[in-house]
């Protein structure tokens, strides 16, 4: 059935109603004739016929408001157009347009997903504290979260009494003075003595050393640092720690605890970093959950624990939960260090200093940056074969610093 619909007379017309039928059913009408009077918000408009035809029936009642596009008239099919072309008079059905109409898509369908993206900030650090009732600047909140500072205990000196970054940096040093007692050197030495003695007594250590060509790493590091401010600079420890934790993922037998004659590998990688303290102390707090961190993030965490180690503010969990320890003696100018494993860990890695020495590269002598990494590991859990694989993996990782 061919119908004519409530016509649209404008984009702001949504509804209309027929207030008078002009063309009658059964009687032919011609193009241009008025079929009905339509009432719209702007007033009365004639609905005109665009082609000749005959009405079959009216489909709606008078004065009934309907949306634009609603069928209001049905028509009888009448062949009306002739094509004069090849001499034959052909009668065709009018409204060839209908065939075309069926294939169109509406503008609505053409529009798929919304294109415009709302602008959302790109930085969202993991643990944003929102719990303090005090006003604190976003930067201060981020810093506090990263350093485990309780904002409720901080006095703010920023705009309108808000807590700002400089208030937190003061905070950590005052923390240090109050915690100074916990780092009594004599007591610490006693504790260390106890640990290392136990370690040497109980853990059968084996030792491996591997010299790594870090020329590529050094070049990459310099390039990275060229684009960074002094604050953001990466020290070589950062990519090394990154390589280590990546290697540990492949060789989890070095990342875990040996207790009661049983080794349990740990899912989470907590990298213990040996830090020597002024006055002769030693502490090895961990960068917790280092598994997903990139070198920049590791650098930040390393700085944070180093600062806090020296000023106080290391948390209990950070000290007891290291799953492996790394001892970096490089900045003391020593090439190789063999560590003592801190039980219940099963390995300790040592990182020596960066040396510029002649090496053979493609059968030619070149000066490259080299660095010796050592492994002291628990022979009850692993042996030299495994250790070699671990060190080689670390080497491999460091040859592709951009993938760290």
């Amino acid at each position, binding site marked *: 059935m061919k119908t004519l619909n409530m016509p649209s007379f404008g984009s702001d017309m949504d509804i209309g109603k027929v207030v008078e039928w002009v063309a009658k059913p059964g009687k032919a009408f011609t193009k241009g004739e008025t079929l009905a009077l339509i009432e719209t918000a702007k007033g009365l408009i004639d609905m005109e016929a665009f082609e000749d035809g005959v009405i079959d029936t009216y489909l709606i009642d008078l004065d009934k408001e309907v949306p634009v596009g609603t069928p209001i008239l049905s028509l009888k099919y009448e062949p009306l157009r002739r094509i004069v072309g090849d001499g034959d008079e052909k009668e065709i059905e009018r409204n060839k347009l209908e065939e075309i109409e069926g294939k169109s898509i509406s503008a609505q369908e053409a529009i798929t997903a919304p294109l415009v993206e709302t*602008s959302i900030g*790109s930085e969202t650090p993991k643990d944003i504290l929102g719990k303090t009732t005090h006003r604190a*600047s*976003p930067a201060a909140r981020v810093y506090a979260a990263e350093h485990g500072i309780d904002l409720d205990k901080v006095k703010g000196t*920023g705009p309108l009494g808000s807590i700002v970054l400089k208030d937190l940096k003061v905070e950590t040093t005052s923390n240090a003075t109050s915690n100074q007692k916990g780092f009594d050197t004599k007591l610490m030495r006693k504790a260390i003595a106890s640990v290392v003695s136990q370690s040497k007594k109980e853990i059968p250590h084996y030792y491996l050393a591997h010299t790594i060509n870090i020329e590529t790493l050094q070049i990459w590091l310099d390039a990275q640092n060229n684009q960074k401010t002094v604050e953001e600079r990466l020290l070589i420890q950062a990519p090394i720690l990154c390589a280590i934790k990546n290697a540990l993922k492949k060789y989890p037998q070095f990342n875990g605890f040996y207790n009661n004659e049983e080794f349990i590998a740990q899912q989470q990688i907590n990298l213990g970093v040996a830090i020597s303290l002024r006055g002769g102390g030693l502490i090895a707090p961990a960068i917790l959950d280092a598994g997903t961190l990139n070198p920049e993030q590791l650098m930040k965490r390393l700085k944070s624990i180093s600062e806090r180690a020296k000023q106080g503010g290391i948390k209990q969990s950070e000290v007891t939960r290291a799953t492996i320890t790394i001892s970096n003696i490089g900045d003391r100018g020593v090439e190789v260090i063999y560590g003592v494993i801190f039980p219940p860990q099963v390995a300790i890695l040592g990182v020596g200093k960066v040396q510029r020495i002649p090496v053979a590269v493609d059968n030619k002598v070149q000066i490259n940056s080299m660095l010796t990494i050592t492994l002291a590991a628990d022979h009850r859990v692993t042996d030299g074969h495994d250790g070699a694989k671990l060190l080689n993996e670390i080497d491999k990782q460091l040859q592709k610093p951009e993938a760290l």
Partner: protein
Amino acid sequence: MTTYREAIREAIRVAMTDDARVFLMGEDVGHYGGCYAVTKGLLDEFGEQRIRDTPLSESGFVGAGIGASIAGMRPIVEIMTVNFSMLALDQIVNNAATLRHMSGGQIGVPLVIRMATGAGKQLAAQHSHSLENWYASIPGIKVLAPATVTDARYMLAEALKDPDPVIIFEHVMLYNQEQELEPRQDDYNAFKASVARPGTDVTIITYGAGLSKALQVADQVSDKGMSVEVIDLRCLRPLDSEAIFSSVKKTGKVVIVDEAWLTGSLASEISAQISEHCLWSLDAPIQRVCTQEVPIPYPAHLEKAAIPQIENILQAVNFVSGTSP
């Protein structure tokens, strides 16, 4: 030492000498020598066809500039001040900015419009507007604001090279400004911001006449150990967001100096962008230093109180850093 005015004059001279398609038209640019004496002497040098005085028909001659640029010339249209540009707003917004789009990319409008802008000479409400933000909000045009003599000298050529309409705003208080004209660097880019003064504690973002005030404030506080970074936007559309964000992430504290009225100012747009992209780096609320919500008054003390002054900027800098003056 060159004045801002002389630099622009030289820029026009060189452009017209180098390219026969370039000509300048506007009110009183020829026989009068230019309302701000920018075009003094150019009529004698280039003649009436190329330094063309127009009747007081802003809409007419801006539209003519559009038509001429479509048909192959490179006109520089001078609208005496932004205050009169509103008579040509239809041509600028409905034609220059839209022709490329409406024609589906067929027709470009390589037109350059220069306008004086700003307050400070007790010229009262109808002669003191800063409407850069209106123009900077319109897709299809580009907006430049030279704040230094060097930029006054070299931005025009960049604008003339651009295939899209470019509006250059010259602040009235800068015409007499005298500075060393620096040579044009190979990587000169008119459409980027510059770090006018590097710093680490607070960022001041500004353009046009705000630059010298910002630099003075930076000098003042450096005596107290505060390091202020001043960003000269130079290009108002497109905004150099990268430069803005980079500075804000460094200092965490921002003051934006803008001579437009506070509401709907460019400072507001920049503020919104900063809060969207740099929230976690902010160490204090963003401060906007803009003109008060009043038509510019005539008496000197009121005009001064209405537009951003060094004291206002200083106050904002102290606020964000939590220091007392």
